[in-house]
């Protein structure tokens, strides 16, 4: 399935929240939705989930409007919320029923995840008796209980310890392997890089960048080289003293000698220089921008 969001505009009163959002996502893949706080992610998610309509623009699945009777969307909201005073299984089944899933299959799905997340003993206790991490797991089960075709995860990893985060990661990977479409929103870039092939960056109510992470990274100039060595200071001096004509800047960043070239074509010349003049080289590689760099580049200055 292919989800296409096309030129979505949405305003609340005088306030224009979304001013032209477009992107697409495929089944069996995860799409990272990035944006600073207040960029309109929640509004966008609500439009996709048909909580309210857009002022203009379309959301289509394989070219047709989403029919909630046929296509199920699972949602893990950033603002966690379930009934604190209700028994866990009772409310999970209730949410499943609201989505049109019969109790029996919902119970099976829930059982499967209870086991996988190692919280089987909490099935019939009240939600508010659980720790934050375990409540988070229940929230995830609530998102997945209707066996959704599209899963929207908004900051799923916040507040989880590494063990729990690991369990959750496995589930997300399973979802992707099962051919679900995963829309993933997070400020933790490492998770985005781990799961998502594609990203869309929202800024100021617009989608400012969309595409595969690899390609985006490739699109940046490849004129920065990182040289790993045990003796960075000596290496830096060697480069600076040689006053190479093709080097525009050299400095030590994060324990690595980082050399900015005037152009990409000079890479072989620098490698040759390094091999001859810098002793004990561990490695030399083009420095790609991190996702955080890209994110900051596209969102800095405005919201």
């Amino acid at each position, binding site marked *: 399935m292919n989800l296409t969001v096309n030129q979505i505009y949405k305003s609340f009163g005088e306030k224009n929240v979304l001013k032209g959002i477009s992107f697409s996502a495929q089944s069996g893949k995860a799409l990272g939705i990035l944006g600073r706080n207040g960029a309109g992610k929640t509004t966008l998610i609500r439009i996709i989930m048909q*909580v309210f309509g857009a002022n203009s623009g379309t959301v289509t699945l394989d070219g047709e409007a989403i029919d909630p009777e046929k296509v199920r969307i699972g949602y893990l909201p950033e*603002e966690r*919320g379930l*009934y604190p005073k209700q028994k866990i299984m009772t*409310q999970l089944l*209730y*949410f499943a*029923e*609201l989505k049109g899933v019969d109790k029996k299959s919902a119970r099976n799905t829930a059982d499967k995840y209870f086991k996988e997340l190692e919280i089987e003993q909490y099935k019939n206790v009240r939600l508010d008796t659980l720790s934050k991490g375990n409540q988070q797991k229940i929230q995830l089960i609530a998102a997945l209980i209707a066996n959704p075709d599209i899963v929207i995860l908004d900051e799923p990893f916040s507040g989880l310890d590494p063990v729990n985060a690991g369990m959750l990661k496995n589930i997300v990977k399973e979802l992707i392997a099962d051919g679900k479409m995963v829309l993933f929103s997070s400020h933790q870039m490492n998770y985005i890089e781990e799961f998502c092939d594609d990203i869309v960056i929202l800024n100021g109510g617009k989608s400012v960048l969309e595409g595969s992470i690899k390609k985006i990274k490739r699109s940046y100039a490849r004129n920065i080289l990182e040289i790993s060595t045990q003796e960075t200071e000596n290496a830096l001096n060697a480069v600076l003293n040689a006053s190479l004509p093709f080097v525009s800047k050299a400095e030590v960043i994060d324990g690595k000698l980082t050399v900015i070239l005037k152009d990409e074509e000079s890479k072989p010349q620098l490698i040759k220089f390094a091999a001859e003049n810098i002793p004990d080289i561990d490695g030399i590689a083009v420095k790609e921008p991190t996702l955080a760099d890209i994110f900051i580049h596209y969102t800095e200055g405005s919201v």
Partner: protein
Amino acid sequence: MKQFTKIFRFEFLNIVKSKAFIFLTLILFIGTTAALFYPRFTGGKKSPSVSVDEPERVAVFDQSGDLGEYIKENMTSYEITLCKTEGEAAELLKAENVDASVVITSPLTYVYSVNDMGLYDETANIISELLQVKYRETRLKELGLTDSQITEIQSAVAVPEYKIVGQDQSQSFFYTYILLFMLYISVIAYGQMIAQSVATEKSSRAMELLITSAKPDSLIFGKVLGTGFAGLSQMLIILLWAVACYRINAPYWEDSLIIASIFDMPVSLIFYAAVFFVLGFLIYAFLYGALGSLASKMEDIGTLTTPLTFLMILAFMVPIFSITSGKVDTAIMKILSFVPFCSPMAMFARIAMSTVKPLHIAISIIILIASNIIIGYVAVLIYRMGILMYGKPPKITQILKQLKK
């Protein structure tokens, strides 16, 4: 519709399984049982007597002669002390050795003194009656009538035969009062419960999942009707149980006109009670639900629902004062019988205790149904807006502005 039934069921079970509900039902159940079985176990006294604040010890001083003795003979249920002087009677009263004193100044005049006049003090009436009988007897004797003639004249009583074309208020008062009170309590209790329940869903952010799983219309209708149905079932069960208890103990209640009148409610009135109860409950419940959706925190609920609660109190107080004073067809009651938020109580009170034209009843019910539809619609609009709104609850003007859009 499917979603609505699921929500309805969930909300209904939520209420019914809640400790508060079970506790309240149990209390009502025990209360009803105890009250209606009471005479069976108290044996001889079949009706609980109204406790009367009457003086029991009375000091009597008679200037003219033997009227003191006469009163003592005829007021056997009182402890009568005959005094020799007026001062003695006053002393006894002052020392609180007696509850009241009577100083007879002539065959038909006397001074009745009492420290505190009780609400139901009948003593003076009894004494007046006795003095009148004695006076007539004396005067008739002087006119030369025989004792038997005098007795016949004295015991002559006019007996009215009542033919009530409309409603007998002495019969209908108690059940009207009880039903109005039940509606009032239900609206206040369950209305608040609905508002709280919506606000809790918002503050716990369960709303985030709810709105992405179900339509707002289903959510509010499911909640209002589910909660309403729980309340209604509770009332119905208690009422049916009360009737059953009464039937079982009917022989013991024969003397008590009040209790008998309550359970002797005409069938047509039960129908009207049901109609006005349901419609009256819903119109308030919809608004309580909508107002609850405007609250972000539980603390906001009080401020938001107070105006509605005041409206309910007003709609309750006017009919209650009217039925208590016995005048249910006042101009204000007639007007309120057609005003949506007031008509369930006002019109019902009038139907129960007076005679209302069927056409007027029909108009009132139609207005109420139409208002329920409109209010239901408005409630959905407010709810749809409210559930996504966090922060300070909006002012009414802001809500109206939003609704226009």
